[in-house]
Protein backbone atom coordinates (compact mmCIF):
# COMPACT_ATOMS: atom_id res chain seq x y z
CA UNK A 1 0.00 0.00 0.00
CA UNK A 2 1.38 3.41 -0.91
CA UNK A 3 1.59 5.82 2.00
CA UNK A 4 0.03 9.25 1.37
CA UNK A 5 2.85 11.45 0.00
CA UNK A 6 3.68 14.32 2.35
CA UNK A 7 3.24 17.77 0.88
CA UNK A 8 6.88 18.83 0.96
CA UNK A 9 8.65 17.26 -2.07
CA UNK A 10 11.98 16.80 -0.27
CA UNK A 11 10.34 14.84 2.52
CA UNK A 12 8.46 12.77 -0.06
CA UNK A 13 11.70 12.03 -1.88
CA UNK A 14 13.42 11.12 1.39
CA UNK A 15 10.56 8.80 2.23
CA UNK A 16 10.61 7.22 -1.21
CA UNK A 17 14.36 6.65 -0.92
CA UNK A 18 13.80 5.23 2.60
CA UNK A 19 16.13 7.80 4.11
CA UNK A 20 14.85 8.98 7.47
CA UNK A 21 17.15 11.86 8.13
CA UNK A 22 17.27 15.16 6.32
CA UNK A 23 20.79 15.42 4.91
CA UNK A 24 22.98 17.44 7.24
CA UNK A 25 24.81 20.29 5.46
CA UNK A 26 28.20 19.48 4.01
CA UNK A 27 29.47 16.05 5.17
CA UNK A 28 33.09 15.54 6.21
CA UNK A 29 34.40 14.74 2.76
CA UNK A 30 36.84 11.87 2.51
CA UNK A 31 38.15 9.79 -0.38
CA UNK A 32 35.63 7.27 -1.62
CA UNK A 33 37.10 3.77 -1.05
CA UNK A 34 37.93 2.02 -4.37
CA UNK A 35 35.72 -0.94 -3.47
CA UNK A 36 32.69 1.39 -3.29
CA UNK A 37 33.48 2.93 -6.67
CA UNK A 38 33.84 -0.53 -8.15
CA UNK A 39 30.48 -1.64 -6.72
CA UNK A 40 28.78 1.57 -7.91
CA UNK A 41 30.16 1.34 -11.42
CA UNK A 42 29.05 -2.31 -11.63
CA UNK A 43 25.50 -1.52 -10.59
CA UNK A 44 24.78 1.80 -12.17
CA UNK A 45 22.95 0.83 -15.38
CA UNK A 46 23.71 4.08 -17.09
CA UNK A 47 27.46 3.54 -16.81
CA UNK A 48 28.91 2.00 -20.00
CA UNK A 49 31.23 -0.17 -17.96
CA UNK A 50 28.24 -1.75 -16.25
CA UNK A 51 26.76 -2.38 -19.68
CA UNK A 52 29.92 -4.15 -20.71
CA UNK A 53 29.91 -6.21 -17.55
CA UNK A 54 26.86 -8.08 -18.75
CA UNK A 55 23.80 -6.21 -17.52
CA UNK A 56 21.09 -7.02 -16.35
CA UNK A 57 22.20 -7.79 -12.81
CA UNK A 58 20.08 -9.71 -10.37
CA UNK A 59 18.03 -7.39 -8.15
CA UNK A 60 18.86 -7.43 -4.45
CA UNK A 61 22.18 -9.15 -5.06
CA UNK A 62 25.73 -7.77 -4.87
CA UNK A 63 27.38 -9.69 -7.68
CA UNK A 64 30.93 -8.62 -6.94
CA UNK A 65 30.70 -9.87 -3.34
CA UNK A 66 28.47 -12.82 -4.18
CA UNK A 67 25.87 -12.13 -1.50
CA UNK A 68 22.28 -10.95 -1.33
CA UNK A 69 21.95 -7.28 -0.54
CA UNK A 70 20.80 -3.85 -1.70
CA UNK A 71 22.68 -1.55 0.68
CA UNK A 72 26.46 -1.51 1.04
CA UNK A 73 28.15 0.68 3.65
CA UNK A 74 31.83 1.46 4.12
CA UNK A 75 32.12 2.38 7.81
CA UNK A 76 35.43 3.74 9.11
CA UNK A 77 36.20 3.02 12.75
CA UNK A 78 34.80 6.02 14.62
CA UNK A 79 37.49 8.12 16.19
CA UNK A 80 39.98 6.91 13.63
CA UNK A 81 39.99 10.11 11.58
CA UNK A 82 42.04 12.10 12.26
CA UNK A 83 43.30 10.23 15.35
CA UNK A 84 44.40 6.59 15.23
CA UNK A 85 42.59 4.27 17.66
CA UNK A 86 44.08 4.06 21.11
CA UNK A 87 46.97 1.58 21.34
CA UNK A 88 47.55 -0.28 24.53
CA UNK A 89 50.08 -2.84 25.48
CA UNK A 90 48.56 -5.29 27.85
CA UNK A 91 50.77 -8.27 27.53
CA UNK A 92 54.35 -8.69 26.43
CA UNK A 93 55.68 -6.87 23.38
CA UNK A 94 52.68 -7.13 21.06
CA UNK A 95 50.20 -4.25 20.76
CA UNK A 96 46.43 -4.48 21.16
CA UNK A 97 43.82 -2.06 19.86
CA UNK A 98 40.18 -1.28 20.50
CA UNK A 99 38.13 -0.15 17.51
CA UNK A 100 34.48 0.96 17.49
CA UNK A 101 32.03 1.03 14.57
CA UNK A 102 28.88 3.15 14.66
CA UNK A 103 26.08 1.08 13.10
CA UNK A 104 23.22 3.30 14.28
CA UNK A 105 22.42 4.24 10.68
CA UNK A 106 21.38 0.63 9.88
CA UNK A 107 17.63 0.08 10.16
CA UNK A 108 16.18 -2.83 12.19
CA UNK A 109 14.56 -4.28 9.04
CA UNK A 110 17.93 -4.65 7.34
CA UNK A 111 19.63 -8.07 7.53
CA UNK A 112 23.43 -8.31 7.32
CA UNK A 113 24.75 -10.61 4.60
CA UNK A 114 28.44 -9.63 4.71
CA UNK A 115 30.51 -7.89 7.42
CA UNK A 116 34.15 -7.62 6.38
CA UNK A 117 36.70 -6.02 8.72
CA UNK A 118 39.61 -4.38 6.88
CA UNK A 119 42.75 -3.21 8.70
CA UNK A 120 45.90 -1.53 7.41
CA UNK A 121 48.85 -2.21 9.68
CA UNK A 122 52.09 -0.30 9.30
CA UNK A 123 55.10 -2.25 10.63
CA UNK A 124 58.41 -0.68 9.69
CA UNK A 125 61.04 -3.17 8.61
CA UNK A 126 59.45 -6.00 10.56
CA UNK A 127 59.25 -9.63 9.58
CA UNK A 128 55.51 -10.09 9.87
CA UNK A 129 55.59 -13.69 8.78
CA UNK A 130 53.63 -15.95 11.12
CA UNK A 131 52.07 -12.94 12.81
CA UNK A 132 48.40 -13.40 13.61
CA UNK A 133 45.62 -11.09 14.74
CA UNK A 134 43.11 -12.20 17.34
CA UNK A 135 39.64 -10.58 17.27
CA UNK A 136 37.26 -10.47 20.25
CA UNK A 137 34.26 -8.40 21.21
CA UNK A 138 35.26 -5.60 23.54
CA UNK A 139 33.16 -4.57 26.51
CA UNK A 140 33.69 -2.38 29.53
CA UNK A 141 34.28 -5.47 31.65
CA UNK A 142 37.93 -5.97 32.54
CA UNK A 143 37.92 -9.73 32.01
CA UNK A 144 39.10 -10.65 28.49
CA UNK A 145 36.35 -11.82 26.17
CA UNK A 146 36.66 -15.10 24.31
CA UNK A 147 38.48 -14.95 21.00
CA UNK A 148 36.05 -14.89 18.09
CA UNK A 149 38.52 -15.54 15.30
CA UNK A 150 42.20 -15.43 14.46
CA UNK A 151 43.57 -14.42 11.06
CA UNK A 152 47.12 -14.39 9.67
CA UNK A 153 48.67 -10.98 8.99
CA UNK A 154 49.42 -10.80 5.23
CA UNK A 155 52.77 -9.00 4.81
CA UNK A 156 52.29 -5.64 3.13
CA UNK A 157 48.60 -6.18 2.37
CA UNK A 158 45.40 -5.05 4.07
CA UNK A 159 44.22 -7.60 6.60
CA UNK A 160 40.64 -8.78 6.00
CA UNK A 161 38.43 -10.81 8.31
CA UNK A 162 34.83 -11.92 7.80
CA UNK A 163 32.88 -11.11 10.94
CA UNK A 164 29.44 -12.38 9.88
CA UNK A 165 28.70 -15.21 12.24
CA UNK A 166 31.51 -14.75 14.79
CA UNK A 167 30.95 -11.04 15.61
CA UNK A 168 27.82 -10.01 13.68
CA UNK A 169 24.89 -12.44 13.77
CA UNK A 170 23.29 -13.15 10.39
CA UNK A 171 19.52 -12.79 9.87
CA UNK A 172 19.00 -10.50 12.88
CA UNK A 173 19.27 -6.71 13.20
CA UNK A 174 22.79 -5.43 13.66
CA UNK A 175 23.76 -3.86 17.01
CA UNK A 176 23.92 -0.07 17.13
CA UNK A 177 27.61 -0.21 18.01
CA UNK A 178 30.26 -2.88 17.30
CA UNK A 179 33.31 -2.64 19.56
CA UNK A 180 36.25 -5.00 18.89
CA UNK A 181 39.41 -5.82 20.82
CA UNK A 182 42.26 -6.61 18.43
CA UNK A 183 45.39 -8.35 19.73
CA UNK A 184 48.45 -8.88 17.61
CA UNK A 185 50.27 -12.13 18.19
CA UNK A 186 53.79 -11.20 17.07
CA UNK A 187 55.72 -13.93 18.84
CA UNK A 188 58.73 -12.70 20.78
CA UNK A 189 59.43 -9.72 18.50
CA UNK A 190 59.26 -6.24 19.92
CA UNK A 191 56.72 -5.10 17.38
CA UNK A 192 56.53 -1.43 16.37
CA UNK A 193 53.25 -1.58 14.55
CA UNK A 194 50.72 1.17 13.88
CA UNK A 195 47.07 0.55 12.99
CA UNK A 196 46.79 3.13 10.22
CA UNK A 197 43.24 2.35 9.09
CA UNK A 198 40.28 0.24 10.26
CA UNK A 199 36.97 -0.03 8.41
CA UNK A 200 33.98 -2.32 8.12
CA UNK A 201 32.35 -3.20 4.78
CA UNK A 202 28.75 -4.03 5.72
CA UNK A 203 26.27 -5.44 3.18
CA UNK A 204 22.63 -5.61 4.24
CA UNK A 205 19.38 -6.68 2.58
CA UNK A 206 16.28 -4.58 3.10
CA UNK A 207 13.53 -6.93 1.89
CA UNK A 208 11.06 -4.04 1.63
CA UNK A 209 13.05 -2.68 -1.34
CA UNK A 210 13.10 -5.95 -3.25
CA UNK A 211 10.56 -6.58 -6.00
CA UNK A 212 8.15 -9.40 -5.07
CA UNK A 213 8.89 -12.57 -7.07
CA UNK A 214 6.66 -12.57 -10.16
CA UNK A 215 4.10 -15.43 -10.05
CA UNK A 216 4.48 -17.70 -13.01
CA UNK A 217 1.46 -17.57 -15.36
Amino acid sequence: ALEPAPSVPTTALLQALRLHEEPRGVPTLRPVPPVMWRLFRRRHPRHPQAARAGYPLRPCHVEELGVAGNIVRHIPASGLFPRPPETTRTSGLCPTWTVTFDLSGVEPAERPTRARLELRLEAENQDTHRWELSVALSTEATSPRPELLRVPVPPGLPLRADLLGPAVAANVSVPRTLRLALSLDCGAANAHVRLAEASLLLVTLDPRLCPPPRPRR
Partner: protein
Amino acid sequence: HTEPGMGAGPGGACRTRRLHVSFREVGWHRWVIAPRGFLANFCQGACTLPEPGGPPALNHAVLRTLMHAAAPTPGAGLPCCVPARLSPISVLFFDNSDNVVLRHYEDMVVDECGCR
Protein backbone atom coordinates in the same frame (compact mmCIF):
# COMPACT_ATOMS: atom_id res chain seq x y z
CA HIS B 1 13.81 18.90 -16.20
CA THR B 2 11.98 17.88 -19.36
CA GLU B 3 14.29 18.31 -22.33
CA PRO B 4 12.77 20.90 -24.74
CA GLY B 5 12.10 19.96 -28.34
CA MET B 6 11.86 16.29 -27.64
CA GLY B 7 9.55 14.27 -29.94
CA ALA B 8 6.08 15.41 -30.93
CA GLY B 9 5.32 17.25 -27.68
CA PRO B 10 2.62 16.04 -25.31
CA GLY B 11 0.46 14.71 -28.17
CA GLY B 12 1.29 11.87 -30.52
CA ALA B 13 1.29 8.20 -29.72
CA CYS B 14 2.16 6.80 -26.32
CA ARG B 15 5.95 6.84 -25.93
CA THR B 16 8.78 7.51 -23.48
CA ARG B 17 9.52 11.17 -22.80
CA ARG B 18 12.81 12.37 -21.40
CA LEU B 19 12.79 13.54 -17.79
CA HIS B 20 16.11 14.31 -16.08
CA VAL B 21 16.13 14.17 -12.27
CA SER B 22 18.85 16.30 -10.67
CA PHE B 23 19.84 15.87 -7.02
CA ARG B 24 20.91 19.52 -7.12
CA GLU B 25 17.21 20.41 -7.30
CA VAL B 26 16.71 19.30 -3.71
CA GLY B 27 20.13 20.54 -2.57
CA TRP B 28 21.61 17.05 -2.18
CA HIS B 29 24.52 17.57 -4.55
CA ARG B 30 26.94 18.04 -1.65
CA TRP B 31 26.44 14.62 -0.17
CA VAL B 32 25.40 12.53 -3.15
CA ILE B 33 28.70 11.37 -4.57
CA ALA B 34 27.30 9.81 -7.76
CA PRO B 35 25.37 10.08 -9.95
CA ARG B 36 24.71 13.84 -10.14
CA GLY B 37 21.38 13.01 -11.63
CA PHE B 38 19.74 10.44 -13.83
CA LEU B 39 17.25 10.09 -16.70
CA ALA B 40 14.03 8.87 -15.05
CA ASN B 41 11.77 9.57 -18.07
CA PHE B 42 7.98 9.31 -18.09
CA CYS B 43 5.17 8.09 -20.40
CA GLN B 44 2.80 10.28 -22.35
CA GLY B 45 0.70 10.09 -25.50
CA ALA B 46 -2.51 8.65 -26.90
CA CYS B 47 -3.34 4.99 -26.87
CA THR B 48 -4.66 4.42 -30.39
CA LEU B 49 -5.11 1.37 -32.59
CA PRO B 50 -1.90 -0.27 -33.81
CA GLU B 51 -0.35 1.41 -36.86
CA PRO B 52 -1.30 -0.27 -40.18
CA GLY B 53 1.61 -2.31 -41.32
CA GLY B 54 2.99 -2.36 -37.78
CA PRO B 55 3.51 -5.55 -35.76
CA PRO B 56 0.21 -7.34 -34.98
CA ALA B 57 -0.60 -6.51 -31.36
CA LEU B 58 -3.98 -7.76 -30.21
CA ASN B 59 -4.11 -7.38 -26.47
CA HIS B 60 -6.49 -6.06 -23.87
CA ALA B 61 -5.51 -2.44 -24.56
CA VAL B 62 -6.32 -2.76 -28.29
CA LEU B 63 -9.60 -4.50 -27.45
CA ARG B 64 -10.53 -1.61 -25.18
CA THR B 65 -9.63 0.92 -27.86
CA LEU B 66 -11.78 -0.95 -30.39
CA MET B 67 -14.71 -1.16 -28.00
CA HIS B 68 -14.35 2.52 -27.15
CA ALA B 69 -14.37 3.42 -30.85
CA ALA B 70 -17.42 1.23 -31.53
CA ALA B 71 -19.52 2.09 -28.46
CA PRO B 72 -18.04 4.53 -25.95
CA THR B 73 -19.09 3.38 -22.52
CA PRO B 74 -18.96 5.97 -19.74
CA GLY B 75 -16.36 4.91 -17.16
CA ALA B 76 -14.65 2.35 -19.42
CA GLY B 77 -12.58 4.81 -21.43
CA LEU B 78 -9.35 4.34 -23.33
CA PRO B 79 -6.34 2.44 -21.99
CA CYS B 80 -3.55 4.39 -20.29
CA CYS B 81 0.01 5.13 -21.43
CA VAL B 82 2.14 3.70 -18.59
CA PRO B 83 5.69 2.37 -17.99
CA ALA B 84 6.03 -1.10 -19.51
CA ARG B 85 9.70 -1.73 -18.68
CA LEU B 86 11.73 -0.19 -15.87
CA SER B 87 15.33 -0.47 -14.72
CA PRO B 88 17.13 0.21 -11.42
CA ILE B 89 19.65 2.82 -10.33
CA SER B 90 22.29 2.93 -7.60
CA VAL B 91 23.13 5.99 -5.54
CA LEU B 92 26.51 6.50 -3.80
CA PHE B 93 26.40 9.03 -0.98
CA PHE B 94 27.72 10.07 2.44
CA ASP B 95 25.23 9.39 5.24
CA ASN B 96 24.93 11.53 8.34
CA SER B 97 27.57 9.42 10.06
CA ASP B 98 30.01 10.17 7.18
CA ASN B 99 29.91 6.55 6.04
CA VAL B 100 30.06 5.96 2.28
CA VAL B 101 26.79 4.20 1.39
CA LEU B 102 25.72 2.52 -1.85
CA ARG B 103 21.98 2.06 -2.12
CA HIS B 104 20.22 0.21 -4.89
CA TYR B 105 16.71 1.14 -5.99
CA GLU B 106 14.60 -1.00 -8.32
CA ASP B 107 12.23 0.34 -11.01
CA MET B 108 13.54 3.91 -11.07
CA VAL B 109 14.03 4.49 -14.82
CA VAL B 110 11.33 4.14 -17.50
CA ASP B 111 12.84 2.29 -20.47
CA GLU B 112 9.65 1.55 -22.36
CA CYS B 113 6.04 2.76 -22.32
CA GLY B 114 2.96 0.84 -23.34
CA CYS B 115 -0.79 1.05 -23.37
CA ARG B 116 -2.48 -0.93 -20.61
